[in-house]
């Protein structure tokens, strides 16, 4: 039971991080469909760094930097060259799939050490809860920290309120004198950093070696999670745990030999995503205030 819960948590962390980053980008009005690509880059960056420097913590940094690099490409084109965000995001994922395939080729067959668990003094000795909540790896703590941080940032900090203003009405925000493009650059790069770390987590904890396209659609599920959470940070935790649970449930089902073909079980996370989106979107269309109004729209104002 305990092991099961730990696996579910580990599976949900990449989703949680990537969705948290995308939430900030979307709040600023940027729809970056390149999450899958940024996660892949994070994964390959982390693998390369750990193989080279032999310390899993460098993997986190390398993952973050790879994600930021990809997000910068996206920002350069969508924010400065005013390209269509949907198409550019798709392009980023396609580009990153190719780039990581090329960069990952020499890494095939090599295994990296896993990220160590950090026990928090005394708290980790509490039965059950202790080992689940206080005996996690650094990224797990970090991801909860990021959720708390963005919740407060969006709600109470001045920068957070400006960021939301830019996402809701970039024209007005621009007239008042806020640097729309700069704010979107930062938000997109924060999204890239989170997606990169989320991607890095996959080789660092879940499967310790490179395979092409190893993110397996997690970036797209993270995008759906942002909608599922109705752009409210803490709901991402709930959503990510549900999807982690579904992913693990189908793996457990396959291992225990449930009388359902394994492929049909493997479909569950994807079908669950569609069902979740359907349930939430029906409600969102009635209550439009949570969706950033300028989301996905290019900003032409001179700067």
């Amino acid at each position: 039971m305990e092991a099961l819960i730990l696996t579910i948590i580990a599976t949900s962390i990449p989703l949680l991080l990537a969705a948290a980053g995308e939430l900030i980008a979307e709040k600023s009005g940027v729809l970056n469909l390149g999450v899958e690509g940024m996660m892949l880059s994070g994964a390959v960056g982390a693998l390369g760094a750990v193989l080279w420097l032999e310390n899993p913590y460098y993997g986190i940094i390398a993952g973050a930097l790879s994600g930021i690099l990809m997000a910068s490409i996206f920002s350069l084109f969508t924010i400065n060259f005013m390209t269509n965000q949907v198409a550019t995001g798709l392009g980023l994922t396609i580009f990153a799939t190719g780039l990581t395939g090329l960069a990952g080729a020499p890494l095939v067959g090599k295994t990296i050490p896993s990220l160590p668990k950090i026990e928090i003094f005394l708290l980790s000795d509490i039965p059950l809860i202790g080992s689940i909540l206080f005996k996690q790896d650094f990224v797990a703590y970090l991801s909860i920290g990021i959720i708390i941080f963005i919740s407060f940032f969006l709600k109470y900090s001045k920068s957070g309120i400006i960021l939301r203003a830019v996402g809701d009405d970039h024209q007005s925000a621009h007239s008042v004198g806020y640097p729309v493009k700069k704010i979107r650059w930062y938000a997109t790069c924060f999204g890239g950093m989170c997606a990169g770390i989320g991607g890095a987590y996959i080789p660092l904890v879940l499967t310790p070696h490179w395979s092409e396209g190893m993110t397996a659609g997690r970036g797209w599920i993270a995008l759906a999670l942002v909608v599922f959470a109705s752009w409210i940070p803490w709901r991402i935790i709930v959503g990510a745990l549900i999807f982690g649970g579904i992913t693990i449930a189908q793996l457990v089902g396959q291992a225990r030999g449930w009388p359902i073909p394994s492929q049909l079980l493997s479909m569950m996370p994807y079908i669950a995503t569609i069902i979740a989106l359907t349930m939430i979107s029906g409600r969102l269309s009635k209550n439009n205030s949570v969706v950033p109004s300028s989301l996905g729209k290019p900003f032409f104002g001179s700067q």
Partner: protein
Amino acid sequence: MITFIPRDKVSKNWIIIAPILSIVFTIFFGLLIFAFLGYNPLETLYQIFVSPFSRIDRIGDILVKACPLIIIGTGLMLCFKSNVWNIGAEGQFIMGALLAGFIALSFPNIETKFFLLITILAGFVGGALWAFIPAILKTKLNVNEILVSLMLVYVAMLFIDFIVRGPLRDPMSFGFPLSKPYPEGALINKIPFPGIGFLGQLHFGILFVFLLVPISWIYVNKTLGGFKINVLGSAPLAAKFAGFKQNSITITVLLLSGGLAGVAGVIEVSANIGQLQPEVSFGYGFTAIIVAFLGRLNPVGILFAGIIIATVKLGADNAQMTMGIPKVVTGLFEGILLFFLLTGETLQKYKIKWSEGKK
């Protein structure tokens, strides 16, 4: 400091210049990345862009690879023109191939080639049904079609895998996940050329492309349906005032693009594989997105774009065999190409102005 100044009208020159410049820039940046990662850029350049033309029969192979790209790309053109983002063509391709395969395998002794009309129709229906899911969710419940159509790609991939390992597996396949071979009537033959025999793998499926390009050109440029699609995409407010029903246009373009992707699936399997197997597509549905943009969302443009991208794909196959470069690198070129093409679109509408420092 670069600033963009709106043009009075869309620059006609840029419509032609942009794709050509984009290709040049893409090759430059692509090779830069190759050099950075330690590959020989000149050899890569040769393998990817020149080697596909090194033998006459390879031109046939280019057309074979271009065939599904052009068919899918034409369907996606309709979607992208009307701002509907179907990115699940890969799944629609698979479901089209699967439904047609199911029908083909249900008539194991059929020999007449007229049967192909039925399997192609079945492919259209299979693909269209798969695209109907995002269409209905988008129009009735406002669910994002991008995510739904993409999720359905994964579902379709797993579904065909299940079918060929389970219900449709050939008991004589010695444990391989393969269906029985298609009957003669469901196979598309290679084109025999008098005097030279076959031109690579070039097959009669290419005729569908020659039919599709003019028909889609007429549809987009000369019919009311095509006009509505254009207006909805370029001036949504005008479309609203004109009383065009946005939902019915959305459903139409999704069904057409899904159907065409399904037809591409049938042609691919009937001509090149001849039976169902777990992998039938090899990413054609995603690559066709690039083809649609490189072709400037124009049927004739897409014809050329399909051929160009097919060349690169074939070149990447060669590069994999001779240099050990993984095949997915085509994605690298495709991604960069898309970035520059989209920038080209901006330059159609805006002039660049260099100014000193900040205003």
